[in-house]
């Protein structure tokens, strides 16, 4: 059944059949004709893919981002950001990268980050002279960093499956997240130099003050989100809702760029974007479940655990396994399957359990935008509307630099662990 499933998926995807239909139809056909599984169960899995707490923030961040867009908030934030770093080489792209990392720390969701940042920054990147391909690669990869930077739902799951301290994982995630971000920033800098991306004139003090004043209300959004979450006023999902309401309030009553009609339209479009993204999540869940049920990830993981005797080789193969898995299975699902199976073997080889968790999540993050599959890629496409062929070079470039980051995270444990050691 698994063979039929994989074959059908490849045929469908290569024939330009939408991903939702490719995964879903392939699953139904292979289950009906090549297994004794009741097809009704696939409906249950489709549902299960969406019945997740972690996904609740996604539509609300989409809505918040759309309101910020339509209500004039994004525009003002951008002018401010440009005035601040636009004169640096690669300034606009760097703003995108850093704000993705910042936002990812809040939302904990790769797709939500891509949407929230991408909606605002993508048009600005194009206007700034960056290619569509580069900009898409930037958005998809920057969004993936959110998996590592705390608070991260994925890290909590790893902690609960293996019994490793979640507090320690969060602290370790900071160092690893920064290394990941830096590897992208280096590429941005080199790219901007090579293609001679126009730099802005350095803003005068007066211009800087003007843009800050105008953007002030909008700039409060991250303050509200961060402050609200860290003071315990609300959860990340609620933060998403609050930022939507706040943005609505400002655009209605302060900037006066919102109307009831416009707001209704924004709600409809946000709902449609939500559907466009979430059907992919749902279909991916079906696939992940069929593979798990067929014991495929388990077999691969067991093989590695049984045949590898040095930490170096283990980590190398572990990276490859997770990168491949990350292409097909969403992060949380992959951890639930793989972590319990390789945990014992890894600890026996002397690998630090916190470090192991960070490596897992770093790999899965990269998997999210490694072509041809990956949730972040498809989510990015909903914003950039360019096809895979066009997107490919940009993705691969960021992939290359992030893989260097991954190597550092993998083979220099102190990147993750030094903060922990200081705190002890």
């Amino acid at each position, binding site marked *: 059944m698994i063979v039929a499933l994989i074959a059908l998926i490849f045929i469908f995807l290569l024939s330009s059949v939408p991903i939702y239909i490719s995964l879903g139809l392939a699953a139904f056909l292979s289950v009906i004709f090549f297994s*004794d*599984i*009741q097809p*009704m*169960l696939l409906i*249950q*899995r489709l549902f*299960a893919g969406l*019945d997740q*707490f*972690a996904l609740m923030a996604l539509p609300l961040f989409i809505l918040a981002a759309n309101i910020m867009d339509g209500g004039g908030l994004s525009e003002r934030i951008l002018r401010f950001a440009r005035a601040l770093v636009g004169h640096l080489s690669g300034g606009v792209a760097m703003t995108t990268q850093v704000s993705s990392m910042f936002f990812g720390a809040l939302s904990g969701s790769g797709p939500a980050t891509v949407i929230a940042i991408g909606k605002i920054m993508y048009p600005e990147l194009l206007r700034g002279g960056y290619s569509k391909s580069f900009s898409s690669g930037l958005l998809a990869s920057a969004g993936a960093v959110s998996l590592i930077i705390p*608070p991260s*739902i994925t890290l*909590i*799951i790893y*902690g*609960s*499956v*293996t*019994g490793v*301290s*979640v*507090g320690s994982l969060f602290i370790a995630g900071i160092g690893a997240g920064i290394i990941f971000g830096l590897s992208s920033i280096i590429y941005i800098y080199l790219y901007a130099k090579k293609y001679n991306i126009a730099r802005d004139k350095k803003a005068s003090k007066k211009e800087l003050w003007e843009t800050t004043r105008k953007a002030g209300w909008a700039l409060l959004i991250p303050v509200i989100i961060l402050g609200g*979450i*860290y*003071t*315990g*006023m*609300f*959860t990340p999902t609620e933060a998403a809702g609050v930022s939507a309401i706040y943005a609505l309030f400002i655009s209605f009553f302060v900037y006066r760029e919102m109307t009831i009609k416009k707001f209704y339209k924004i709600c409809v479009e946000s709902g449609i974007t939500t559907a466009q993204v979430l059907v992919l999540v749902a279909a991916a869940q079906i696939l992940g*479940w069929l593979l*798990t*049920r067929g014991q495929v990830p388990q077999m691969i993981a067991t093989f590695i655990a049984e045949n590898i005797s040095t930490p170096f080789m283990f980590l190398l193969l572990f990276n490859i396994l997770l990168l491949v898995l990350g292409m097909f299975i969403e992060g949380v699902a992959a951890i*639930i*399957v793989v972590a*319990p199976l390789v*945990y*014992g073997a890894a600890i026996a080889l002397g690998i630090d359990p916190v470090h192991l968790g960070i490596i897992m999540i770093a790999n899965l993050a990269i998997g999210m935008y490694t072509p041809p599959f990956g949730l972040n890629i498809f989510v990015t496409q909903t914003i950039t509307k360019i096809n895979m062929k066009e997107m490919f070079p940009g993705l691969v470039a960021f992939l290359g630099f992030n893989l260097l980051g991954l190597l550092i995270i993998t083979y220099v444990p102190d990147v993750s662990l030094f903060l922990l050691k200081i705190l002890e």
Partner: protein
Amino acid sequence: ACGGGTKDNDDGNKETADTDASNNGDSVVIRLSHNQPLESPEHVGAAKFKEVIEEKSDGKVSVEIFPASQLGSLREQIEGTQLGEINITMQPTAFVTPFVDDVKVIDLPYLWPADTEKTYEVLDSEAGQAVLDTLEKGGFKGLGFWPGGFKLFTTGKKEIHAPEDFKGLDIRVMSSPLLEDQYKLWGANPTMIEYAEVYNSLQQGVVDGQENPLQTIYLNNYHEVQDNIIESYHGIMSYLFMANKDWFEGLPADVQELIYEAEEEGKKAARESLAETEDDYRQQIIDSGVNYYELTDEEIEKFREVSVPFHEEAYGESEQVEILKQIKEKIEEVTK
């Protein structure tokens, strides 16, 4: 409308039993799912169950264990068992309640004696069997009560010694109306928060406290982000070890017998393993420097007084009254 629905249900289940290849011929493969990690007492018990079955049947009957919620969330695993996709599952009573309301009796606050062995004695008696039998309403065959341990309170700044200490506190509960009512009864504000979010919510003060067995507290490091860990004996976490009814009844009698036997041994292994790990976890939590204390008998009595009238209120439907009475009589008998 209700009759029509039931008919569909029956048809669905029959189809399952017929098309399940594992049921044909001589060999049987049992798909068993649970939620806990590999080192947990629950898994130790499941592994024992597998070992006993495979040994005694000379490999004719084999067990595939899917631990750590690999086959889906708790709700989905229970539904999967109804659908016949999973043969046997092990799930907390609170999660089974939306499927079969009668099992919530297990979760009533201050129903059980503050003594593990005596609680087991009641659960393993006729009274416990009466609760297991109600599972048939949901299409399940209840085989036994597997252990999760007594639940403890954990709180931030506030120490808990009496029900009124809960006044105004936000307490995280699982998605269960009964547990919600329990905290309302004591004056707290129950808040439903997803399991994966509990650590963050405690750390950031979204809620002031929560309840869980030692194992869950230790493995999720809740003691890192809470000031007080309180052995309250207010309720037990119990797993229902249950099979799809039609599947079970379609098995040859000797295989059924084997399952009963293996369940006994698995349950025993899980209970022994739990006792060991709880001692270890308790010590580690105490060593972490958190304020760890047990409620005194008088304090427990105060809680019990407030909670007992709630039992009939929460568990008052016709058949339920009888089951509750049976359990209380048995408790009286073993605690005499």
